[in-house]
Every structure is written in C-alpha cells, then in structure tokens.
C-alpha cells in the first residue's frame, strides 16, 4: 500500500526543510506526516491567523456554506474524482470495510450539504446573519456573533468524518482551523481540505490539516498554547492532558468518550421484533461500534410477544446478515483479545444456565451477550453488545444511574405512550439525545452535541445597546 500523505497546508504556506516521517502499523497502513516541530506549528498558526484577518472574517457565511456545500456534493457524486479518492483510501486507512466506508461517507457528506448546514445555522441562531455583522437584537439593540480567530481541533481518530464536521463548524463561525486528525480519521479531512482548496481557494487559506503521532507531545502542546479555542475529542486521559496545558484564557470544548444504550419496550417485540432487531443491529454495527453514538447495552422489556432471549437471537441473526451487506473491518488485536475473553466466559456462563451467547465464531467478531441481571459495562466494541432483560423500562432507567457521566445517545423503540416520561427521566440522567434505533448512528447537524449547541459553543457575542 502507498503511504498516505497526511497533511494539507494552506497554499501560501511554505515550510523550509519540510521533514517527513512515515508511520507504519501492523496492518500495513502507513502515513507520511511532516515533522513540523513546535516552531513549525507556531509559524503555521501565524499564517492561519493572518488568513482569517485578511479574508475569512470578511467572507459572508453564505459563501462559506456554499463552498462547503460544493465539496459535499462532489463527495456524494459517484462520478467525481474527489469521492473516488476518498473511497480508495478511506476504508483501508480507517480499518473499515469499503462498504462501511461508503455508507459513512454518504451520511457524513449529506450533513455537510447546504440544506443541512442551513438547518444548523437556523437552529443555532434566530438570525444567522449575526455571523456577518450586527443585526437587530432584543430591546432595540444590536447583536454580533463571531467565532475565535483560530481554533485547534484535536481529533480522536475513530469515526471518519467527525473531524471534518468539527472543521466545518469552525469555518461557519469564521474561525481559522488547525486540525490534527486522529490516526484512523486522516483521509476525509485531507480530501475535504483539497476539495475546499479547489472550490474556494481564498477560504481554504484558513484551513490546515496536519497529522502527527499521538495526542500528546510538543506539537500538540504548541497548538494548544497558540489557539484561541481548543476543540478536543478523546478519552479522559487525553482531555486531562489538554487541560493541563491549556492557557487559562483559552476555552476548551471537550467531547469526551461516551456510551450509547438502547431501550426496547414491549411494543417493539411483537410483529416488529424482527425489524427492531435489524435496526438495533445496524446501530451496533455502524462504525464497527466505535461511535460515541454506538450502543453498548440494549435493555429489552419482558412480557412482549417475543421474549428478550428470543429477541437476542433475532439480533444475532441480523448481525450475521449484516456481515454480507456491511462487513466488519479487520479486528484490532486489542479488541479481539477482550472479545475472546468475553466469548469464553459467556459460554461457560451459558453452560451453567446463566444467560446465553451468540457469536460469529472464527468468521466474524459480532457477539450478543444475553445476560439477565447483567451489569452495565463498556463493550469491547467490534459489534459486541450485551442484551439485558428488564421487567419494565423503568428498571433500565434505574440501572443507567451508574452511567450518568457517560450517557449520551439513547436509541428507543416500542415505548408507545411512555416516551415522554422516559425522555424526561433520560434528560435528568444527562442523556443528550433520544432517538429511534434506526437513526441512532446519525445525529442531525443541529443536535446539541453532548448537550451544547455546536456553533454557539464556539462564538462570542457582542451586544450593542440602544442609544449609543
């Protein structure tokens, strides 16, 4: 396999003696990345700041939206070279199957189209033109909203496209972007930045995408110290690391690791049992379960036409079927290690009359662990899910108390008229998203990401009071 070029710098920016390194891993994916050093990062940030001052801050939000929309449409157009390039590298480099890579690109790029972004702007700002200049505000005054001059985005390298979404949000609020994607999310930001350069060279002067190994290190530190706002995706360890280096005046938007769960009420276990199992299987399988929106545990209510154990078997069947249409990527050894332990343990448990386990054996990693009185625990991913039967959905809500700091997306089905009270309880538990199982993997652009408005989390407001 060729080495993937893992940087895209603004056209005008030339680094003397750009030194390159190559990063290999065990699955033959390799990346070429520049060794910018902290000095190089600082120079790059200076250039990005200048681009923002000289052009980006004066560009209408409609122009940003238009440019992003054109890139998104090219990524959706099967005849376009940009899409072809993306799909050539995306699967292999992200460790996903090509079918999965394509499914992800389609949904992600759809959310970068003008229509969806317009929805985002309108959801965030009653008058999105506050991003271009002062607009009438309450009480006869005026309002203006602006993003910080330069944001540094530290990607987690998990779900492809997430860091592009982060980049797009910043551009919409006129912020220059330095993006360090994670190891498994290099392809889409690179392709996107290239597309942007082709569609709007002026705008693209404000964008730099550079990979360097690891979340920590001197380059990350220089980027954190030099930014006006830091957006960081990652585990608690990464976020702690960032916090320790963050200048006191620099805001941090941290998207920590989260977990999703599913709640299935009796009504989803009648005629719809097979359909709800199929929907659940897609929610589990999408991104090979690496998403913060991916469910780790599914609570299934007893007393429906299909019992929880039977439903778990249906889910297993659906996961098996998905291997044909949406195959899993290569199993990362660390996940495989945990997976095998789970399978062996669960088989012994089943032998002793406790629970049941269904899995893809040597062919596929998917595993359904049916576990009465099972605890909540993070899945080892790779399409491994625990099914816990509950007498009533309320029992699941009680069990979720333990997940409070980590709860994010809750996929639901068959709740009937209970959905409002369940939603209320989940809101109190800190869930930031309640959605049908079908749409669990795909939050809309205007979702309050981990509870915050995705654009409002970036801007500062200036109020002009009447009578000046």
């Amino acid at each position: 396999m060729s080495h993937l070029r893992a940087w895209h710098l603004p056209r005008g920016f030339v680094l003397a003696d750009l030194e390159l390194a190559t990063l290999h891993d065990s699955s033959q994916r390799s990346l070429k990345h520049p060794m910018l050093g902290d000095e190089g990062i600082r120079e790059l940030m200076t250039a990005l700041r200048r681009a923002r001052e000289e052009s980006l801050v004066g560009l209408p939000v409609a122009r940003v939206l238009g440019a992003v929309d054109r890139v998104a449409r090219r990524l959706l157009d099967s005849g376009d070279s940009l899409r072809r390039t993306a799909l050539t590298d995306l699967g292999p480099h992200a460790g996903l199957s090509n079918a999965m890579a394509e499914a992800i690109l389609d949904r992600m790029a759809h959310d970068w189209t003008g229509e969806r972004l317009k929805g985002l702007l309108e959801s965030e700002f009653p008058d999105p033109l506050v991003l271009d200049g002062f607009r009438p505000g309450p009480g006869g005054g005026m309002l203006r909203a602006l993003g910080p001059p330069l944001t540094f985005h530290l990607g987690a390298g998990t779900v492809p496209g997430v860091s592009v979404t982060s980049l797009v949000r910043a551009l919409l609020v006129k912020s220059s972007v330095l993006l360090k994607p994670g190891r498994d999310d290099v392809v889409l930001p690179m392709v996107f930045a290239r597309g942007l350069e082709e569609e709007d060279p002026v705008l693209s002067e404000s964008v730099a995408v550079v990979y360097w190994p690891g979340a920590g290190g001197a380059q990350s530190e220089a980027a954190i110290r030099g930014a006006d706002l830091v957006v960081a995706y990652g585990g608690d360890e990464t976020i702690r690391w960032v916090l320790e280096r963050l200048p006191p005046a620099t805001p941090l938007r941290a998207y920590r690791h989260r977990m999703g769960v599913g709640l299935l009420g009796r009504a989803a276990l009648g005629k719809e049992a097979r359909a709800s199992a199929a929907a659940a299987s897609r929610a589990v399988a999408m991104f090979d379960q690496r998403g913060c929106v991916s469910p780790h545990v599914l609570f299934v209510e007893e007393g429906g036409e299909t019992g929880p154990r039977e439903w778990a078997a249906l889910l297993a069947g659906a996961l098996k079927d998905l291997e044909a249409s949406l195959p899993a990527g290569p199993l990362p050894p660390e996940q495989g290690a945990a997976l095998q332990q789970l399978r062996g343990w669960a088989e012994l448990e089943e032998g002793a009359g406790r629970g049941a386990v269904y899995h893809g054996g040597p062919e596929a990693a998917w595993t359904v662990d049916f576990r009465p009185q099972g605890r909540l625990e993070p899945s080892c991913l790779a399409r491994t899910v625990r099914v816990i039967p509950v007498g009533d959905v309320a029992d699941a809500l009680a069990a979720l108390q333990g997940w409070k700091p980590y709860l994010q997306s809750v996929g639901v089905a068959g709740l009937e008229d209970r959905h409002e009270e369940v939603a209320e309880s989940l809101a109190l538990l800190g869930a930031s998203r309640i959605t049908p199982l079908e749409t669990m993997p795909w939050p809309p652009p205007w979702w309050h990401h981990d509870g915050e408005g995705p654009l409002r989390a970036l801007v500062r407001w200036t109020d002009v009071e009447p009578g000046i």
Partner: protein
Amino acid sequence: VTFLELRKELLALFSLGVEDPLPDSDFNRLALEVFRFQCLENPGYRGFVARRGADPDALSRWQDIPFLPARAFKSAPLVSGSPLEVERVFRTSGTTGGREARGEHYVRDLALYRASLLPNFQAHLLPGVESVPILCLLPSPEDAPDSSLSFMLGEVMDAFGAVGTWGPPGNATPAPEEGVGGSSVQEGGGFYVHPTTGIEVQGFKEALQRAVAHQVPVLLAGTAFAFVQWLELARNGAWWVRLPEGSRIMETGGYKGRVRALAREDLYRGLTEAFGVPAYRIVSEYGMTELLSQFYEPVLTLDGQTGDLGEDGVGGHGDPGWDQGRRHHGAGPVAGRFHRGPPWVRSRIVDPLTLGEVPDGTPGLLAHMDLANLGSVSGVLTEDLGRRVPGGFQLVGRSQGAEPRGCSLAMEDFLHALGEGP
C-alpha cells in the same frame, strides 16, 4: 489415566529441570492425555470443549485443543476432579474486567505448583546460586493467602532464601566474604508490603541497608506496581542504595505497558537508579493466577564454565534466542528481550478472531498449554498480545502511534470514574 498417574509423570518431568527441551512427540502425548483427563473430570471445561465442536478422543495435536479464555475462571470453579479435593484457591486481583467476580483458580495439588515453579525460578533468577536473601515487595503468603504470586515467592523463600540474622545495619559484624551462595550469608529478606497499608518503608529500607553494610548480594522481587510506588518514595526522599554486585531483581507485571503505568524502559532505568542494579540483572516474570507455571526472560543465565554470573549477565548455553536479545541491549534496557516457559508449557500465538496460528513475528493472542495445571484447565487463552521470536515470545504492549479506537468509552476511564480504577 488417573490424576495420580499423570501427577506422578509430571512431577518426574518437572524434576528434570528446565534446560533440556521436551521432544514434540512427548509433549504432544502428555498434553493430549492431560486434556482428555480434564474433559472427563471437569464438567465446565467439557461443556466449553463440546460447544467449540472438539472431540477429545479425536484430537491428535495439542494445538487443536480448545483453549479456555482466562476470564472463564470467573465463571465457575474449574476443578478437574472433586472440588472437595482442592488444596487452595488463588484469586485474581479483580481490577480488570470491572466489578465482576474475581477469577478463581482452584488448585488441586500444590505439589505440582511447587515442582513447576522452583526449577524455573532458579534457572532464571538464581542460576548457580544456592541461597540468597530475598526481599519481596509483595504481601506475605500469610497476609495474602489467595495470591498465587505471594505463594510462589513464599515457596522460593523457603527453598532459596538465606536464613539467619545480620544484626542492625552498620553493626561491626564482619561481612561474610563468600557472597551469593555462601553458606554463612545471613538472612535479611522478607515481605515488605502490607495488604492494606502498602509498602513497609522502614523495614524495607533497613533490609536494603543491611545488604549494603554487609555487602551481601540480594534478590529483590516485586510487582511493577509496587516498584513504581517505591521509586516515587525514593525520589521524594532522595533515598537510593547501591546494592552489592550480583544483586538482581525480579519484576512482574511491567510488560503490559498500561496507560497509567510507567513505560517499562523507564521503570528499569528507575530501578537501576534506586537500587544500583543494572538493567541486565532485572528479569521480567510473566505469570498469571490461572497458570501454575511462569515465563521468564533468560537474561541471567549461568555463564558457561565458571559458575559465576558473568559481568553482563550473558548466558552462553546455546539458547537460540539469546544472542538476539543481547545484541539489542544498546537500543535500550529491554529491547529484544523475550520470555520463555519451562519445557512443560508450550505457547501458541493466535489470530484474535480465527484463533488460528499467526506467522512467526506477527502479533497475536498468547495461548498457553501448561501441564502443571493438571488439576484445573491446561489450555488457557490469555488477553495478552505477543509475537513469537526464536526461543520464546515477546509481549506486545500498546504499539507506538496506535491510539485507542472508538470515541466510545474506554474501560479504564469507566472504572476510574466509578472509583474502581487502577
């Protein structure tokens, strides 16, 4: 074949020591006999074997035995025989795997454990040495009756620990001249971790000081976790010793390269600084509660003819992997090192999904067939990653540049948030 018959054969085999390899056919025959015995006598394991579609009587290669994942020891008492005949239950520390029950290894016969651990320990930690003061950064077997590691070091202490007293440090008593192995070496060893209060700093310091005052080489043994704690204490108190030449360290658990733990290279540098023991006299032990045999790095092997430990601890007894291990010393204190087991253990390195053998040099899951586990389950699949190298295997930590995948929650963060983390 009965337990007693197999036990007798295994004890005889273990008594031959670890240096001479067991021919493949001998190992295969014994392994299959042990496996068939376990299928008969161990219902839990039998169910697992059946579920994996294996027919115990039809198998002809030990490699085809279904290896039981170690986590299964958390499910049921896996005794091959009557649970009433169990001599001891060892338990895992219980942090990994969440709040689940701790793994339990029901040991039918401690004699097999003893017979397996002693020759292997001696060959790798005390080659050519009869007795030595042993200082353990571990709880004593009395304080931690369910720790297999404490039990092991207790046995080692009984077999090789020097006995007697030195008197207080700085005492004018002349130091014994004989050094390691000399019969007049006086005792100064013991266990210096209390199960609840942690390292017994004063006692440990005094023992170290005694060794220095009397110029008696010692063996230090402990977990990487305890050593890291000691290094912090030593650094904060600017307290270090230079143990007499010939001293050595057995470290266990440092190979995992856990997120919050120190990199192994840094740990060894710290140990050299704190104790004056060079990295080539620090031996990593790899073992687990679920296995009665252990794996060691062959770095302290007996130096040919002399019976002394060579200055750089190099053994020259024809171990095929040894030269490789040595050559890489320049690259760092642990580069090129590998672990090996005794002749009654064989290891497979398998693909994490298919469980088929991976090519040499490719990382995979470690699975061990440990005949000393006669009374429980011998074929154990671990959660550890390793790669095969000449002479043994190398444990593989989280590789450089590899970031944990998934923005979904990591188990460690989760446990940490619940206050149960490491």
